[in-house]
């Protein structure tokens, strides 16, 4: 049907088939080839200048992992990632598969045309005709659904509708409709041979519109419609590189490029700043981004899934992850002399040749680094990396950061922890628990090092987590020691807020301490410490086997070394996913299993869970910044948790504990307890030991 598929009339011999350019004068056939070649060339040219634009970015190694890349590419081609949203999936499948079948059908017809042996004959031709009819109908149905979604139903995430969307929908619809019309005319020209009933839409169209016309008239109409159909396809080729339809090509490639040399929880490594002078840190000008970060912007489908799961956006902050992608793309296009997407307001003028001409620092600082955007983007765009690189620039090149963060930086510098507490008091939490502390310069003699983290060491509520964890480890016979005063902040708050310098200062000291003590295995209850030590310390020579306490507790319970009690029987417990455990490290099930192992409890889920879990608001060093705009993220999440009518909100992260406990207090719900996994297990055992389990008993 599409293109050439509509061109044929029944062959003179009366054979069941058709001629590719039937009824099309030789001149038009030549024009067809010339224009088709010309437009393919134009499209290629437009893609090439975009390609040159991507090349402005810095290095980013995306080699290797061939099998994985091939798998991701095919997932992209078959839209596996898109189908996660059922409604959008049906719409997009009809549209995309309809179009692809028609496109392949057209190419098949052309192959049949030039091939000495004709294969589109007899039953093969009939089946071919029939399949293409179905595909055409699917395309039209998909387009109607798409238009209905965009213009009538308007789901929240499609909020960004522009003339570009209409242009794309109309072009595709024109292709489908002109195709059916031309087909109808072709069948009419051939005098409605019986076998063409298999092209049932074309047949009906022909009967309806053209059966009354004199033959000469139909011949003329057919030629005109054929030209129209051809023109719509040329239009499609023209808009392919310059509108978001290009994602049909760029997105599967983007998925193939997704896998990178570092784990997904790791930020882009930077050279050792203690030894090397670096000219710019982070990203401001387009050239400061990597080529992949720039390529990403041309793969965006503007679907808005990132925005729909963003906790900052959802609570009224100025940050919109989709805008971050598009704005970087706009600045890239503007500064590179390439067409900006049609939708972009052409009036926008850049105040500077940097992304900060379009992106405000408020946007950049609103991010909690929760990674919900990245994990929910159907085409694998890496949004968080861009934001964090911009933070690096703001923090170290411009010193443009919220003032409260300055206090945290000072505390990290002077006291090696963001609370600014005396390092000497680091082990005080362990009072009365008989925990071994490694003296400076001494080797670790236990199997594990328990890395307590700043929150577990200094924050009152979180000391309970450390105490509960230590008690359970002893209970299960796990041999461990702590570093006490020689443990420093891992540097996570510094790194996530862009202060790479401070991060490296802390990281190098910690790695030296750990390596000197011969530490191999580390237990930690903090997902942020876990992430940094697992994924980022290897960038600077610190290689350890780090286990988060959720996994260790699950393991101990599975092995029968730890048996939770039933003191919490009858309680309703809802689990909140930690971003740095879940999305950054794919640990979703162990915390659930640990909670479920407690005797007689009922485990509840919030609607937004696992990859779609809503951040507590503390990540990305947001813990150390004021939240001045919009609804408080922690209150939003607490409200969601309270909606499940729990007795207890279970968390697996010290910062989630603080945020959700504050949220429950703000809502006046002292009856609902917030507790870390270790606190829950300890509470279920009801040991009587002070400072473990849930506060206030229960």
């Amino acid at each position, binding site marked *: 049907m599409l293109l050439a598929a509509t061109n044929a009339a029944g062959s003179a011999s009366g054979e069941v088939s058709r001629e590719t350019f039937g009824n099309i004068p030789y001149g038009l056939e030549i024009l067809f080839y010339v224009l088709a070649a010309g437009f393919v060339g134009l499209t290629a040219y437009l893609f090439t200048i975009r390609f040159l634009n991507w090349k402005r970015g810095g290095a980013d190694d995306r080699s290797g992992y061939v099998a994985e890349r091939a798998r991701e590419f095919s997932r992209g081609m078959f839209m596996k990632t898109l189908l996660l949203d059922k409604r959008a999936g049906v719409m997009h499948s009809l549209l995309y598969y309809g179009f692809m079948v028609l496109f392949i059908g057209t190419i098949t017809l052309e192959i049949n045309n030039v091939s000495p042996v004709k294969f589109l004959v007899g039953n093969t031709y009939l089946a071919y005709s029939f399949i293409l009819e179905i595909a055409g109908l699917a395309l039209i149905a998909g387009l109607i659904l798409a238009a209905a979604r965009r213009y009538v139903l308007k789901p929240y995430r499609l909020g960004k509708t522009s003339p570009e969307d209409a242009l794309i929908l109309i072009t595709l619809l024109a292709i489908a409709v002109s195709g059916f019309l031309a087909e109808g005319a072709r069948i009419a020209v051939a005098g409605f041979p019986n076998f063409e009933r298999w092209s049932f839409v074309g047949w009906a169209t022909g009967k309806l519109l053209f059966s009354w016309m004199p033959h000469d008239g139909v011949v003329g109409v057919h030629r005109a419609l054929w030209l129209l159909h051809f023109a719509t396809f040329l239009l499609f080729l023209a808009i392919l590189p310059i509108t978001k339809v290009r994602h049909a090509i760029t997105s599967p490639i983007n998925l193939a490029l997704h896998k990178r040399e570092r784990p997904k929880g790791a930020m882009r490594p930077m050279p050792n700043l203690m030894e090397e002078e670096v000219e710019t840190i982070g990203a401001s000008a387009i050239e400061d981004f990597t080529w992949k970060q720039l390529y990403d912007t041309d793969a965006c489908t503007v679907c808005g899934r990132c925005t729909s799961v963003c906790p900052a956006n959802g609570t009224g902050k100025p940050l919109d992850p989709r805008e971050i992608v598009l704005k970087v793309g706009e600045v890239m296009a503007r500064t590179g002399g390439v067409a900006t997407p049609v939708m972009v307001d052409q009036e926008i003028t850049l105040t500077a040749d940097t992304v900060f001409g379009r992106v405000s620092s408020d946007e950049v600082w609103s991010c909690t680094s929760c990674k919900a955007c990245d994990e929910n983007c159907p085409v694998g765009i890496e949004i968080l990396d861009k934001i964090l690189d911009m933070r690096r620039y703001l923090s170290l090149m411009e010193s443009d950061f919220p003032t409260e963060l300055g206090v945290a930086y000072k505390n990290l510098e002077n006291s090696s922890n963001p609370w600014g507490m005396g390092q000497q008091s680091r082990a005080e939490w362990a009072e*009365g*628990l*008989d925990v071994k502390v490694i003296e400076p310069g001494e080797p670790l003699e236990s199997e594990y090092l328990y890395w307590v983290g700043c929150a577990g060491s200094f924050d009152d509520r979180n000391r309970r987590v450390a105490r509960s964890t230590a*008690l359970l480890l*002893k*209970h299960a016979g796990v041999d461990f020691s702590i570093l006490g005063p020689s443990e420093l902040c891992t540097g996570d708050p510094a790194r996530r807020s862009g202060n790479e310098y401070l991060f490296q200062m802390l990281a190098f000291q910690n790695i030296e301490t750990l390596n000197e003590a011969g530490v191999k295995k580390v237990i930690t209850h903090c997902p942020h410490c876990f992430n940094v030590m697992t994924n980022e310390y290897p960038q600077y020579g610190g290689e350890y086997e780090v286990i988060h306490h959720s996994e260790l507790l699950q393991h101990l319970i599975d092995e029968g070394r730890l048996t939770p009690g039933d*003191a919490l029987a009858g309680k309703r417990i809802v689990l909140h996913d930690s971003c740095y455990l879940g999305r950054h490290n794919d640990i979703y099930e162990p915390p659930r299993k640990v909670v479920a192992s407690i005797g007689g409890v009922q485990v509840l889920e919030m609607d937004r869970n696992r990859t779609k879990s809503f951040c507590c608001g503390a990540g990305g060093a947001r813990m150390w910044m004021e939240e001045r705009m919009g609804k408080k993220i922690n209150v939003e999440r607490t409200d969601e948790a309270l909606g499940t009518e729990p007795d207890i909100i279970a968390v697996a992260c010290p910062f989630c504990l603080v945020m959700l406990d504050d949220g429950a207090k703000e809502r006046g719900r002292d009856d609902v307890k917030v507790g870390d996994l270790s606190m829950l297990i300890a509470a279920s055992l*009801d*040991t*009587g*030991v*002070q*400072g473990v389990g849930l*506060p*206030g*008993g*229960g």
Partner: protein
Amino acid sequence: MASWYDLRVFCTEGLGGNPLAVFTEPVEDMRATAAAIGYSETVFLGGEPSSRAGVRTARIFTPEGEIPFAGHPIVGAAWLFEELAGNPVNRLVVPYGEIEAWRVGDRAYLRSEPPEVGGASDDPFSVVEALRADPADLTPRLPIARCGHGARWTFVPFAEPQRVLELEPDFDMVKGVAEVGLYCFAMRGDEVTSRCFAPSVGIAEDPGTGSAALALMAYLARFSRRSPSELTVNQTECRIDVSMNERGIVIGGEVVLDGVRS
């Protein structure tokens, strides 16, 4: 005399604590034996052994005679069971009834339902006089009241920990005003400083009174506006952990075995 275990209960990192003698073999005259040792309490285990796993029986004697319930002997006995047999004990049957008791590391604990608060009231003036204290040293936020399992302690709330430490009571008068003894305390957050005078049961000053610490929690739950869920009681040389939840009140602390004597 049969050999016995010499323990200290409610210690602080190995130091201090309330001495306890524990006999694991049958003894003819328990009362005389307890008087001869002279510790505030002596425990005799396994009077009538129970067939249920983790359940043991015990009887508690002061130098004056048998008492139905006491904190530090039960905590010490629960600790010692695991030390000797490696078998965790989870219940002790004493004349008062069956008490949940268990060991965690170098500590042991017991749980009890909260005792009744109130009943007979004391005359504040004679209590203060017996303690030779200044009435102005008491905190007006809490009342003088009685609370305890069976024998009830009289709780006397002071404003300043220092005043409690300085008390020099008139023991003859204390005998006259108290049902069992006067428990004087002051609070700083969840830290309690206390002293316990019980001349009427033959103990002028008890170094660490578990049953009173337990009753203190019930007393605070009733009268304190902040009703804490965890307390650390510092009584002379002893440190007692107290906590309360829906399942009852738990007291416990560190136990040290000083040796076997005979």
